């Protein structure tokens, strides 16, 4: 970091330029931004470590990953430097500001209408040419820019050297080299931000050659007209460019003359909802209607001459300028070892021969580690929460003199269900998510999307759906969130709706238990394990096939004719940082998902207990319901107990098996098993369990159909809630709920009919 620039500095003392001194003056404020704070926007291409910079400055823990497009909505944080407060806005990663995709509009509107005091453009030092494209576009809008040259470590590894001084001189704005992942260069970055915000560094980005030379005259003419129409607006050239480019959103801004409020009025959410106008753009005077009309007419006439190729010429020129600047600043003293190394790995992991075997091996290993590794902590948690704390709580409740019903609802119902969910759910997630995040950080997952895209394309879907499905094997709610990396709305919707078909952690125990009890029992003892494992794998694979089939049919029916955009960038491999990965995946994914599950499990526990203990006309509510559901249940090869268990287990699939046991005990009037009506329990002896289920009328068909139904039914409430939050549409949420449910009924009914036909004939 000895290359850090020293932009015009008001402090003369040596200690003031020492990084240690400056770091001491940086205070991370998390989300606590004061009312008077200055606003700093963080823009950049996807996957340039923008969010890492954001986290490093604010001390927050926004999720990052080696994936283009992790940050979707805007996030805010704050920091303090020399007792001046700054509000930091992390804008979505975009390649440009011209295409008008929702992400790009959010970013552009904020830079233009939100009027940040400083815009920090984070660029990837190892791919400067492409990243400068965005930086140059931002510089057209505002001059108050600091360029953060991030991923310097990676650039060095690739044998590149970037001359920050040369780049700063060419761009006319401060350029700071950082490696945000290792916390390097951040002090200099903050100082540069502060200097630009204070006006101590005056940016001079005027000498850039971004406009097409043959259009200079046209631009100058139009810009002159615009400045007549809007006296006092500094970025008239940018407005002229947008008018020539046919940007529909600029003309209305011109006629109202309210460059500062146009965006806010339209959508305060997206532009940050700031009320006070900011300094960079002086409030324009009243537009002269005649001059505005004249400017618009000129634009229309010029557009005829420049043709529809204006935007293309513009991008071409911006890239030419980016290439020129990068050529001056970047030297390649070292032959590109790393790039060759990356390429060699890519050749292997995407090859016809090794691509799929490597993928299969990695994922099998991941599942094996998760399933076997989770057993031990699960047992510990269960011993602690259920065998130790639960009896203690019961005694405590009794000692307080609580009535039996109160103890039943709170301790036997709510506490026990929650404890159950935690002990079954937490360990596999705490193992699966870090493993997944590790592969993600490494950069392997985009290669998986690349390998599988051909398959997903056939289904009308996006290769990245493979990732969200994979994530769904951990938890469907997390899988639905993971679809954010898909930037095409249509394909993203498909991925959200079909995520439920990947068998989540909560359903694996059911599958494994039923398969080993019923199917494993069919085979000779030494093959039993293999048969049951094979059956579970078959069900999981069926889920993937169903996800593809449903995507295929939806994309050809309901979503037919919707626009689809494909983009997949394969980022360079990055050595993952183990502790950060572990910490972040536990905080971001595991705990959040667990918290939601707990919130939903509490009432479910109460409902289970109450349904088993409240009696209407001498029989419990549960028994009434079971009798009601027995008709349809038996028709589809299940029974009333199972259907009721799925009804009350909507909050968490983990409690399906214990709920089935409670209700089976209840309906078969079995005594000596379990802890009492409506209290979750588990049987550790398979023979005993099998005997109980046989008493409940279970056959092999029931077992097979339960395995199928467990795969194909409505998502759990946590997932439903997440789907609603991600789609913001009641319509698509209900499709995601009822489509798999209906499909589940159809599949189990078909299997039952076929079974009876074969067994009968």
């Amino acid at each position: 970091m000895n290359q850090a620039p020293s932009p015009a500095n008001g402090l003369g003392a040596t200690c003031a330029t020492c990084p240690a001194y400056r770091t001491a003056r940086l205070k991370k404020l998390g989300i606590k931004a004061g009312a008077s704070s200055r606003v700093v926007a963080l823009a950049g291409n996807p996957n340039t470590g923008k969010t890492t910079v954001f986290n490093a400055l604010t001390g927050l823990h926004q999720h990052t990953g080696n994936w283009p497009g992790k940050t979707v909505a805007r996030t805010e944080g704050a920091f303090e430097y020399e007792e001046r407060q700054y509000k930091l806005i992390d804008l979505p990663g975009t390649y440009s500001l011209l295409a008008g995709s929702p992400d790009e509009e959010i970013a552009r509107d904020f830079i233009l209408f939100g009027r940040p005091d400083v815009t920090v453009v984070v660029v990837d030092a190892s791919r400067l040419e492409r990243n400068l494209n965005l930086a140059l576009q931002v510089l057209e809008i505002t001059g108050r820019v600091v360029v953060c040259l991030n991923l310097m470590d990676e650039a060095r590894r690739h044998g590149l050297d970037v001359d920050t001084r040369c780049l700063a001189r060419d761009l006319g704005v401060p350029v700071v080299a950082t490696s945000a992942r290792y916390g390097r260069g951040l002090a200099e970055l903050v100082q540069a931000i502060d200097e630009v915000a204070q006006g101590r560094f005056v940016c001079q980005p005027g000498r850039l050659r971004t406009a097409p030379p043959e259009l200079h005259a046209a631009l100058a003419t139009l810009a002159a007209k615009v400045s007549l129409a809007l006296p006092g607006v500094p970025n008239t050239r940018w407005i002229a460019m947008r008018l020539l480019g046919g940007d529909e959103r600029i003309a209305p801004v011109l006629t109202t003359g309210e460059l500062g409020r146009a965006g806010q009025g339209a959508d305060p959410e997206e532009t940050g909802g700031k009320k006070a106008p900011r300094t960079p753009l002086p409030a324009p005077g009243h537009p002269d209607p005649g001059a505005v009309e004249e400017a618009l007419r000129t634009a229309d006439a010029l557009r005829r001459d420049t043709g529809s190729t204006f935007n293309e010429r513009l991008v071409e020129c911006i890239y030419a300028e980016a290439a020129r600047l990068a050529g001056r600043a970047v030297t390649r003293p070292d032959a590109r070892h790393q790039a060759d190394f990356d390429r060699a790995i890519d050749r292997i992991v995407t090859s016809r021969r090794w691509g799929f075997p490597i993928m299969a091996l990695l994922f099998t290993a991941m599942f094996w580690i998760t399933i076997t590794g989770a057993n031990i902590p699960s047992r510990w948690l269960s011993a602690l929460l259920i065998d130790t704390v639960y009896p203690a709580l019961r005694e405590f409740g009794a000692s307080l003199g609580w009535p039996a019903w109160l103890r039943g609802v709170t301790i036997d119902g709510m506490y026990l269900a929650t404890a159950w969910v935690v002990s079954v759910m937490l360990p596999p997630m705490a193992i699966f998510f870090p493993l997944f995040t590790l592969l993600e950080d490494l950069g392997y997952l985009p290669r998986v999307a690349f390998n599988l895209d051909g398959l997903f394309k056939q289904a009308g879907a996006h290769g990245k759906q493979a990732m969200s499905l994979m994530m769904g094997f951990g938890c469907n709610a997390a899988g639905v969130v993971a679809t954010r990396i898909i930037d095409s709305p249509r394909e993203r919707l498909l991925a959200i709706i079909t995520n439920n078909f990947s068998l989540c952690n909560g359903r694996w125990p059911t599958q494994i238990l039923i398969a080993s009890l019923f199917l494993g029992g069919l085979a000779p003892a030494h093959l039993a394990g293999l048969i049951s494992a094979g059956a579970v794998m078959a069900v999981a694979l069926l889920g993937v096939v169903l996800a593809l089939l449903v995507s295929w049919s939806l994309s050809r029916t309901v979503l037919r004719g919707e626009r689809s955009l494909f983009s997949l960038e394969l980022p360079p491999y990055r050595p993952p940082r183990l502790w950060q990965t572990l910490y972040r995946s536990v905080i971001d994914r595991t705990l959040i998902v667990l918290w939601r599950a707990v919130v939903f499990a509490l009432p479910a526990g109460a409902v289970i207990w109450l349904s088993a203990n409240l009696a209407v006309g001498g029989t419990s509510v549960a028994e009434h319901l079971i009798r009601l559901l027995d008709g349809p249940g038996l028709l589809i090869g299940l029974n009333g107990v199972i259907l009721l268990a799925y009804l009350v287990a909507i909050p968490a699939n983990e409690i399906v098996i214990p709920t089935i046991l409670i209700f089976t005990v209840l309906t078969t009037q079995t005594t000596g098993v379990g802890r009492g009506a409506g209290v979750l329990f588990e049987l550790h002896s398979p023979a005993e369990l099998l005997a109980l289920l046989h008493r409940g009328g279970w056959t092999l068909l029931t077992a097979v159909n339960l395995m199928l139904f467990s795969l194909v039914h409505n998502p759990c409430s946590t997932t439903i809630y997440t789907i609603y939050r991600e789609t913001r549409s009641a319509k698509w949420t209900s499709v995601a709920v009822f489509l798999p449910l209906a499909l589940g009924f159809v599949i189990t009914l078909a299997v039952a009919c076929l079974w009876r036909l074969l067994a009968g004939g």
Partner: protein
Amino acid sequence: MLSNSPLLFWFIVVFLAGTLLWARRRRSRRREVARELAERVRREDALKHLCKCEANGIPATLASVAGILHLPADGTAELLGDMEQRGLVSFSSGELHLTPTGRASGLHIIRAHRLWESYLAGETGVEKNAWHAQAEEREHSISPAEADRLSARLGHPVRDPHGDEIPRAGGALSADPGRPLTTLAPGTAGRIVHLEDEPEIVHAQLVAEGLRLGAVVEVVENSDRRMRFWAEGDEHVLAPLLAHNVDVLPFAPDEAGRTETTLSDLKPGAQATVLGLMPDCRGQERQRLLDLGFVPGTKVASEMTSPTGEPTAYRVRDSLIALRREQARHVRVRVPAADAAPPP
């Protein structure tokens, strides 16, 4: 029950009779509306045809109008008579001419049609083959103000996805560029600038043949019986009648299009220089490709292909970008002479 309540009986009779009468009137009214609409559509289609003829300097005749509208001669004569009465056309010395009102109205329909096609191509996932038919319906229900709004939303496009000029509101139509493929001599090459979208069956056939806007064609044989030519690495044989619907802009003799190909045809490991994007790639798709760096002059290398056949990863400006085949087909590239495929 009816017998012991005569009032109810009569009430029902009156109600039924009233409903029947109302329904009949409604039906006849609806039929009349449909007939009026059909007539308006026919008038507007005729105006469209007349505008195109006028712009290209081709005399419009009763027969050509009849051909476009699939109408018998007497029906066409009746229609044109009606149009003359409405002040849309005039006959002078046996020729059909547009009045200023007729011209404005025809141009608006052409503008609406081409804007709608641009919208379908750029903003939706509707298939290529369906663009024309959908636009053919929509053009009659778009008002000039709506057309202006559509144009603004699309960023004021100048050409539609078939390569035709979109007239400005209140502007004029210029002559079609290029000339029919059938006028090209064997051994010469050109670029496709227009694929006729009428009649539909012809357009569907051309699209099925794999011909598209921007493709480079090189004529091998041109006789009365057939046209043989190369386009994008494939040999095509068309009947002259069909080939007449393809308009090309011939290359100058030194402007060789032979080394031009698309990214999708790039061999694994090969390098190329981007020449531009195909004209039928529109909207956000086009902008995204540009933003990723696929602009003229950029060096691209094909790095690897997915084991499932698609996509292929290309190195462009130090990034590795995966494109599906139909996206890669949108990028025109020039391969260095040594790597170029041997001439067909």
